[in-house]
């Protein structure tokens, strides 16, 4: 049996039944991943203890104990999440040798469900970027075309899943960092409702926007991982007490009576015609399954990029103050404390991180606070109200994830504004705290994958998972795979 051909759900099922061994699955994925990583650079490091974790799962099966939903499934973890005794870099030189004495709650929950942590995936430094080019550990290549970016900031996680260097991955999404790379790499990615998944142990970028979520090859796999990591965490006050549904089990393809919103403002942007065509087809697919399409409006959405690039850097400027060289992380040789701060930070942070720290520091400064930060917060509230109003008339929305498919490495990195505009369709979701996902929906003529974005009201992940599975079913006929397969 080719272990690499099984889906995550199938793998977990067979491991639980003792038909295959977690150790063999882990070995197969480790071997493949290590070899492919030379070209793709999706992983920053591999978990040398992965096989020990896999053995434990097999031991449990042998002892007739249930290892959990993700039994023996190798999962890639974005290197923004802390993993106990395993280097956690956030893609930054400042944390290059940082080995945390604790794991993120998400990691603990995966392990509690029998998942095997395969390694830590590459990302834009501190999750700040849309192309994975700001990583201190080098760019990640898109498995569909290695001259293109995998997207960002969770480019390593997306590339790993797309290239089967793991059965699933954990990523984070502050302004689109799950959905955009999932879109560029032809996989499924969901950013759950803010508060659905614990942020404890995940290096903070913008606390009020950050949310971890899964990436997978199929909607069902992704839903299964999401179930495993969701739910209240006493260590994160912003997590919700809401019960976690069995999303995977509850998936249903019937869309009769469902109203799909088409947000007007999202279609006023210049969208690549091939992308537009795929979006149109997706609407048709949903219609064919009984859904009706309705135009909705989000008047504040065109300001989302401006709001986002005030709120996120403001929080980031404060969140990244702790990397000062005093207790851990990069520490520059210095004569006094001021020099220690300045040199450690100057040497440790990359250009994009510095740019955002400076933007945020400026926006919070006395004299500018009201005009920038406060105004952005007010606009953010208006945007949320727009969404609430729009959702009174529809169950979820369908829109593009980005205006184009994956762009060339080096294509936009020199122009920060062009790079920021990548996030035009994804940032509103974070600002409103809504669940959003990207699901593959077609290919460009060049063979690059294109996904669609689905956005639901708070805590209604099931609605978009259902729709995503419908799209998956009706577009996946070709079963195309990236060249590296």
């Amino acid at each position, binding site marked *: 049996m080719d272990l690499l051909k099984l889906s995550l759900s199938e793998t977990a099922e067979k491991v639980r039944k003792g038909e295959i061994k977690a150790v063999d699955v882990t070995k197969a994925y480790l071997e493949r991943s290590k070899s492919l990583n030379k070209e793709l650079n999706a992983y920053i490091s591999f978990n040398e203890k992965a096989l020990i974790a896999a053995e434990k799962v097999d031991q449990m099966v042998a002892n007739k104990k249930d290892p959990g939903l993700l039994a023996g499934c190798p999962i890639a973890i974005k290197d923004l*999440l802390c993993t106990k005794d395993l280097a956690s870099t956030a893609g930054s030189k400042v944390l290059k040798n940082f080995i945390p004495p604790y794991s993120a709650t998400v990691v603990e929950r995966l392990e509690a469900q029998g998942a095997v942590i395969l390694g830590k995936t590459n990302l834009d430094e501190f999750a700040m970027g849309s192309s994975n080019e700001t990583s201190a550990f080098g760019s990640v290549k898109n498995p569909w075309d290695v001259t293109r970016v995998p997207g960002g900031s969770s480019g390593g996680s997306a590339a790993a899943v797309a290239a089967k260097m793991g059965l699933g991955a954990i990523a984070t999404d502050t302004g689109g960092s799950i959905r955009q790379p999932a879109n560029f790499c032809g996989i499924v990615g969901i950013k759950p409702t803010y508060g659905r998944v614990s942020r404890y142990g995940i290096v903070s970028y913008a606390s009020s926007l950050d949310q971890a979520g899964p990436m997978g090859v199929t909607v069902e796999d992704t839903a299964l991982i999401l179930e495993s990591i969701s739910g209240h965490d006493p260590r994160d*006050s912003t997590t919700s007490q809401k019960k976690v549904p069995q999303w995977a089990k509850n998936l249903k393809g019937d869309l009769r009576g469902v109203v799909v919103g088409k947000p007007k403002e999202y279609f006023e942007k210049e969208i690549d015609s091939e992308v537009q065509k795929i979006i149109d087809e997706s609407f048709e697919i949903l219609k064919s399954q009984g859904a009706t399409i309705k135009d909705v409006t989000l008047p504040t959405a065109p300001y989302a990029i401006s709001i986002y690039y005030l709120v996120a850097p403001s929080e980031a400027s404060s969140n990244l103050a702790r990397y*000062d060289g005093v207790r851990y992380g990069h520490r520059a040789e210095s004569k006094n404390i001021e020099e220690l701060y300045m040199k450690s930070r100057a040497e440790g942070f990359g250009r994009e991180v510095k740019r955002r720290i400076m933007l945020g520091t400026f926006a919070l400064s006395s004299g500018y606070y009201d005009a920038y930060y406060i105004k952005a917060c007010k606009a953010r509230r208006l945007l949320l109200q727009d969404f609430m109003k729009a959702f009174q008339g529809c169950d979820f929305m369908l829109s593009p994830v980005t205006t184009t498919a994956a762009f060339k490495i080096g294509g936009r990195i020199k122009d920060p504004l062009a790079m920021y505009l990548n996030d035009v369709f994804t940032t509103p979701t974070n600002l409103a705290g809504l669940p959003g996902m990207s699901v593959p929906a077609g290919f460009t003529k060049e063979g690059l994958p294109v996904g669609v974005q689905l956005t639901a009201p708070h805590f209604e992940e099931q609605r978009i998972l259902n729709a995503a599975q419908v799209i998956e079913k009706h577009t996946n006929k070709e079963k195309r795979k990236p060249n590296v397969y």
Partner: protein
Amino acid sequence: MSTEAHSQYEAVIGLEIHAQLLTETKMFCTCANAFGSGDNANTCPTCLGMPGALPVLNKKAVEFSVRTGLALNCQIEETSVFARKNYFYPDLPKGYQISQYDQPLCKEGFVEFFLGEEKKRVRIERAHMEEDAGKSQHQDQDTLVNYNRSSVPLLEIVSGPDMRSAKEAAEYARAVRSILQYIGVCDGNLEEGSMRCDCNVSVRKWGAEKLGTKVELKNINSFRFIEKAIEYEIERQIDAIESGEKIIQETRLYDSDKNRTFSMRTKEEAQDYRYFPEPDLLPVRVSPMWIEDIKSHLPELPLQRFERFVREYGLPEYDSQILTQSKDMAGYFEVVAKVSKNPKASSNWIMVELLRCLNEEKKEIVDSPVSSQNMAELIASIDSGKISGKIAKTVFEEMYKTSEAPEKIIKEKGLAQVSDSGSIEKWIDQIIESNPGQVSQYRSGKDKLFGFFVGQVMKVSKGQANPELVNELLLKKLKE
């Protein structure tokens, strides 16, 4: 500078008091809020500011803060918000302090206290929750940081600019400490830093409405130094203005060895803290029901106890003030008063004898070697005539030295008062016999000598003779 010039000015003083709350765990993590542990023993990823670690609010810290707000007659806000105060310092692990800024928990209260005979009222502008920082220790070229104190809960109590003298400011600070101790939220130790006091001081000409430029004094670690530092600062500011200088807004540190203040940083050098709402914590909501519940469990406060002591025990206001300043002292007094059934004598003995001894040794009432029970028994022994007031002082000295019960000391040292006329007559006869000259002078009309005979009899009886009997019998014998 002439005192005449100085009398043209009035000082305006406001205090910011930081009180460490006596919760078992820290404000945002489950580390012990305890001292004396090894360096950095009480730390975790959260209070060390490790990547990804998050704060979770300690409910007890909120409860203690609400309790304090109520005791300070504040309005308790049902919704308050934590904010980040951003600045770099090695003892501040996250690079920001979690504090409250524009939406504090407690607003608009007041504290009443006595300044001599006069009852004063100082407004409380706000009281807000925040976390403490770690502690830096400088050793030669190096600086070591101990984060045991990092994230310990603090309540910052900000007064109005209502005080007009150094003495008043010190009394206000004492009153606040007393309240904090009464309600059991803070031990109020300035020396050890569990209570810290920053003083804002400005001066203006009498009658002027506009406030002068204020200077903030920091680093003051006793009530006496609060008074001295403010006194010095008032003088300094008046002298500066009189010699044509301008007061600049700045922070000054008090040096108690030199009794002067010196500039730490000016307003121009002051930091922009870039406050913004803390996104890792939800707004704090306290329900009216919870506030009511905390209110209903508030203990008697110092001023209420003061009033009760005057009313119930008939004590002079001065005594009552001293005795109620500390909760332990007031409690000690109440035991002595109730057991001895003599409140006035209890107050005198505690204030005169016991406090003198304790003050000499810089001890607190809880460290008193004389238990309240023993103190009461001593007073009862005087009242029952078992010992004289004079002997009682000897007994007290012994009690203070040995912590023994008065009964035992009186018995072992044979100090009980002698009230049988036979023994006393014997002593009188002895004195009359050995002082024939004085006896004849007395008998020829020199009445003043009577006191001499009383003294001699008391001396020969080693103070044990019942003075009333001595008087009575002496009169009789000398007439014979």
